[in-house]
């Protein structure tokens, strides 16, 4: 549960600057209004987050005494090939969750920017649906589609491409791209709907002007479409990259990190280390690194979005 469309607008608009004296009552009554939300957030999100950072410097199973080990858990993440590969897998998934959907979305949005489409609500509903459905159910559905005797392989055989058929999720080379493809399916509709909404807001004059200046389709795309979609692209990147970096449900149901370690990702390792092999400190360290990566990626995207133009 994240949804970070937010962070973008947060960055764009300075939040503070007490413009006028707040009306009504003594201003400290504000504390009362935020208190219930802030307390629950502090107790069940923020305090555990700090506690998790603290635990990441220890080794133990969480029941008996924990032993202080300094940065050892972090050194492990940097040096242990399995742990390290989890992050490489997560970055590979970004290609499938973010880059491919955005490429498809840009292509279609550009192609569609001049057509007046009626029934947008229907298309939007269809395009959003994969994003709304529980990832666990999506994983179950795609396990069926990708099963050795599932619809994908039967389809390939039916069209004479039987040599391509394989046990997708059991194949060391293909398991991760297969999971990635599921991510592409989840995200492309969302991204497309976002970019379509954006491209329709670009004033037509800009395209006219570009054409009068003799711009070809590529220049038109670079000079008008891309800058015009800046905010939509930032939102799409933030949503899809965060989803790619987390991705616990899909991995847990579809592959459990297998075959071998071919599809382990950080969030799966957090779960496995904490609740299967009881290495509390290692799990906490993995979780902490994951947060840092997610925050770094979001800051980068937000900065790129603001820097352009």
């Amino acid at each position, binding site marked *: *549960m994240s949804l970070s469309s937010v962070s973008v607008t947060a960055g764009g608009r300075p939040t503070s600057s007490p413009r006028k004296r707040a009306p009504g009552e003594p201003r400290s009554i504000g504390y009362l209004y935020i208190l219930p939300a802030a307390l629950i957030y502090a107790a069940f999100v923020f305090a555990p987050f700090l506690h*998790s950072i603290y635990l990441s410097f220890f080794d133990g199973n969480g029941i008996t005494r924990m032993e202080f080990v300094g940065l050892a858990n972090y050194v492990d993440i940097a040096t242990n090939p399995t742990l390290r590969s989890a992050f490489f897998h997560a970055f590979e998934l970004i290609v499938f969750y973010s880059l491919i959907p955005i490429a498809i979305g840009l292509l279609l949005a550009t192609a569609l920017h001049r*057509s007046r489409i009626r029934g947008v609500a229907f298309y939007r509903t269809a*395009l959003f649906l994969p994003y709304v459905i529980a990832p666990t159910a999506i994983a*179950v559905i795609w*396990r069926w589609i990708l099963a050795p005797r599932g619809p994908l392989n039967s389809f390939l055989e039916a069209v004479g491409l039987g040599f391509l058929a394989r046990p997708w999720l059991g194949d060391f080379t293909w398991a991760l791209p297969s999971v990635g493809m599921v991510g592409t399916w989840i995200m492309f*509709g969302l991204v497309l*709907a976002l970019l379509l909404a954006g491209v329709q807001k670009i004033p037509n004059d800009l395209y006219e002007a570009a054409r009068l200046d003799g711009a070809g389709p590529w220049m038109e795309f670079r000079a008008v479409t891309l800058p015009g979609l800046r905010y939509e692209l930032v939102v799409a990147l933030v949503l899809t990259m965060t989803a790619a970096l987390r991705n616990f449900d899909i991995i847990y149901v579809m592959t459990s990190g297998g075959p071998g370690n071919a599809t382990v990702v950080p969030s799966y390792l957090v779960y496995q280390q904490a609740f299967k092999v009881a290495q509390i400190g290692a799990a906490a360290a993995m*979780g902490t690194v994951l947060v840092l990566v997610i925050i770094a990626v979001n800051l980068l995207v937000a900065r790129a979005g603001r820097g352009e133009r």
Partner: protein
Amino acid sequence: MISRRDTIAGYLLLTLAALISLGPLIGVVVLALGEPGRVGIKLDITQATNFGNFADVWEKGDFGPAILTSFIITTTVVVVSVILSVPAGYAFALMDFPGRTAIFALLVLGILMPLEAMIVPLFLDMRRFNLDNNYWSVILPQIGFSVAFGAFWMRAFFVQSARSLMEAAWIDGANSWRTLTRVLMPLARPQMLTLAVLFFVWNWNDFLLPLVMLSGSDLQTAPMALVTFEGARRTDFAYVGAASLITIAPVVIVFILLQRSFTRGILAGSVKE
């Protein structure tokens, strides 16, 4: 200058995209109505008549109690989170108090933070206080995450549209609570509905938190029941398909009924500014 050809091509492309989105789901509907117990998986729409599969799965997969558990947890989270988000957003938007910016920044950080970053101590603490294997062990953290987004969302609304109205109410002598409940909240209804839909979808679908918190008990949410059921009957695809549809049905219904609210929430980030 909109040519007919562009428009037709547009419809074709969008229809293709919609079909790709819907295809697997339509496939699952046909699958779920197929003959149970057959390992060979030929989709045959003429055989898709086994409506009894849903009743069988409901029974065999314990979906009754699971759906009930999910409803209890999710509605509690939705109601409480919306109720707490509105006043928080109001205060962050329109009141001035020391530490406001810092507190708000910490809260917004929660939108980005994945559960993975705190699941370990969360579980250890819940167990210490004997709250694990209990509705509250899922409800309370879900509210914590939800209000982070909710306060942000409501603040954005109040900042944009409420200042002048609120000043008018203030001139009329209304205090801050009356201003909120009598003047602003009726206006904020669409925003609150969007929040409720988003909270419902996210928390219904949530898997890691209930998996960790409830695994020592008989309690399970609908996604947990689905995963358990699929694990036990891997190859009985008709049943697994029916179980998937049972799990997603509430969210799909809410989404289709309140599609506008949901898309407004997702598209909002880009609409601003």
